[in-house]
């Protein structure tokens, strides 16, 4: 029985000839409590890898104030970084084409120490990395825990690097998201679903804080701050299902970085309203109707006088 178990184990456990290394990159290994400090999380991989799910055990004495994706090698997030109920920082995303190299940044954590002592960050073994191959082979992970010594009287290095740059320009796309209510296989015509806007922006400074979407019949210059403020913005994640499923509205997508810098991209309506369904059209039709009515009334009055 044991021989069988051993055989199964040997067959199932991949030999770690090649591996990805997840490392912590702290500013300092002894930190203070008066201000937050930064810890980078990086990856080294000698084989191209394209999908990463990180699970970081956060010690009780530490609080993750922020997780920035600025300069991250992860281009598309499946799960943006969040803290789960087990005090674990969780994130996942993909790198189209794969990443192979040394010290590729995954995230930059801003951390506040809550009490003195030694705190240990661990890459939880439930983290996963997959190779950039057609069968998504799992890549073994090697990690080293990070031990930080917290000393109350110590001053942390100032992290106030101003980020005044806007997020990079990006290209939102409006497309039908099949919702499974009919046959929507890629090989057949897409007949059903919701029209949604898909977007992703990069911010190489402080990282993307979030997105907002507005729909409007009005064409507004994204640089016109006063008019932009008047739009009805809604916090959004990609894909965002559009309220106007007729696609006759302008769609505005706003990417906001963690310093509050904003980049707005505008998409023209795919099905512009005919002129008579615009505000100007309604006014013109009303005016014409009034003129015709007035003319009719005048003619009636004239014929009555006769």
């Amino acid at each position: 029985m044991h021989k069988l178990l051993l055989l199964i184990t040997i067959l199932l456990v991949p030999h770690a000839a090649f591996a990805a290394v997840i490392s912590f990159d702290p500013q300092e290994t002894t930190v203070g409590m008066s201000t937050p400090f930064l810890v980078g999380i990086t990856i080294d991989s000698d084989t191209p890898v394209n999908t990463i799910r990180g699970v970081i055990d956060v010690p009780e004495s530490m609080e993750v104030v922020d997780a920035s994706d600025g300069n991250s090698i992860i281009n598309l997030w499946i799960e943006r970084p969040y803290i789960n109920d087990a005090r674990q920082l969780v994130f996942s995303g993909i790198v189209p084409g794969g990443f192979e190299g040394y010290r590729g940044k995954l995230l930059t954590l801003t951390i506040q120490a809550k009490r003195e002592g030694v705190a240990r960050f661990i890459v939880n073994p439930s983290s996963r990395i997959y190779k950039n191959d057609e069968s998504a082979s799992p890549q073994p992970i090697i990690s080293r825990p990070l031990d930080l010594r917290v000393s109350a009287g110590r001053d942390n290095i100032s992290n106030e690097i101003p980020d005044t740059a806007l997020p990079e320009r990006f290209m939102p796309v409006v497309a039908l998201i099949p919702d499974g209510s009919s046959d929507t296989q890629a090989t057949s015509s897409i007949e059903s679903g919701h029209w949604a806007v898909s977007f992703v922006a990069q911010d190489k400074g402080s990282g993307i804080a979030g997105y907002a979407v507005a729909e409007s019949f009005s064409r507004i210059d994204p640089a016109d701050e006063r008019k932009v403020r008047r739009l009805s913005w809604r916090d959004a994640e990609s894909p965002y299902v559009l309220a106007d499923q007729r696609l006759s509205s302008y769609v505005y997508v706003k990417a906001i970085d963690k310093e509050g810098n904003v980049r707005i991209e505008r998409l023209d309506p795919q099905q512009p309203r005919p002129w008579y369904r615009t505000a100007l059209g309604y006014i013109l039709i009303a005016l014409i109707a009034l003129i015709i009515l007035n003319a009719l009334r005048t003619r009636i009055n004239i014929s009555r006088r006769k």
Partner: protein
Amino acid sequence: MKKLASLIIIAAVLIPLSLYANSFNLTLTFCNGLDCGDVTAPSTPTNLEAEAVSTSQINLSWDASIDPGFPALGILGYKIYRNGGGTEVATTTGLSYSDTGLADGTLYTYTVSAFDGAYNESAQSSSVSTTTLSVPSVAPNASNGSPSGTFAAGTTETTLSLATDIAATCKYGTVADTAYAALPNTFSTTGGTAHSKLLSGLANGVTYTYYVRCQSTTNVAMTSDYTISFAVASAPVRVPGGGGGDKDELPLSQVNVIVRGIAYPGSTINLLKDGLAVASTQAGPDANFEIQLSGVGSGTFTFSVWAMDSQGVRSTLYPFTVTLTSGVTTVIGGVFIPPTVSLDLSTVKRGDPLRVLGQTVPNATVSLIFHSDTEIIDQVAADARGVWNYVLDTLKLEYGDHTAQARAAKATDISTLSKTLSFKVGTVNIPVKKETSALIGDYNADKKVDLVDFSIMLYWYKRPLATTAPPVDLNRDGKLDLVDFSIFAYHWTG
């Protein structure tokens, strides 16, 4: 009456079960999720071996442990301990580990323990000791000097870089045969095995030659020069090749990135920035291409390039991650896109020929690798159009599943491996289905695998997969998970 019936049923199940358990000396434990009552530690890892491979690195390997616990949650990983410390220096899911950053000529002792899904940890293995290699008293050897070739006119900065086989400090100058101590300039990044220095103030029409010498940490210096030479063109370059042949160069003040490389003659080259398509061009008849991208800011970017050959077959993505500085033109050269590869049969009758064909750089040598029980490696020459054609004698292969890959070599340049193609050796011949609609991951059938398709996957992620959902479950295991996202990312076109 109902209560009595329930009690009888429970007793009927539990009593035989407990008797069965006692006969095997098992302990029955009630489970609750992962805390499933497995309190049995895994077996101790065996055959721990340590090998010093450098002055700062020791490689460890060991045999797998087993998890005899009930329920057996499996071995989750291994902890590596150094010099009898009570705290692990690392954890890994594999059966080997490279401990780096060690002091040279120093004795290190290691033990390893295994832990299972319930975090039970085994006893530590027998210890092994080894000593890192001593710092050699030989001079460093330099290699991989960069840049080379000719930059576009207007390039004002580049990074001088090289590597050494051992840790060293490198200096450079412009006079040949200058002793290390007399060289006037030291690389800004040096002391390890990678050395670099940003050069600015470059001028058009000038050839720059630098003579480099390095000295090891034991103060043994190179006695001959390592030369790095490059030039900046004296006139604006034009985008080479068919489609781009008449295109004037962008004003240099706007250019941030220039990507140069080789693909296939006349092929379409697509450039992705952080996964999104941003530019394309056409390679010239010599397969060379150049793409200029302007308006890119500062920061770390992941670029990828892929090409489509004359038969409409796509290459794999060729990715590279670079850090850009605003206002500085960064030239990325030496991109060698792997060959396209296709097969004429998906199943080949054993003994019949299997044709493997594709396109690469004109007159390149294509190495073919057939992954089988016995790996077969062979070579074929591409013609003047870069087209290559190889016939495999399938008598060399056993019945079953096999894969094929290719890579190309021209002069001293070697491409990365092509995409992997699977085929079967059987008793009949089955032709490969022509790719009509079937780009894997193209859920909205727009002939691209891009952000919209990713959004469709996100929409379905953590939602129950309806039978009429798009085919997002790419490995067909009944769920949409990270494996499907990884397969999707492999097929990404942007």
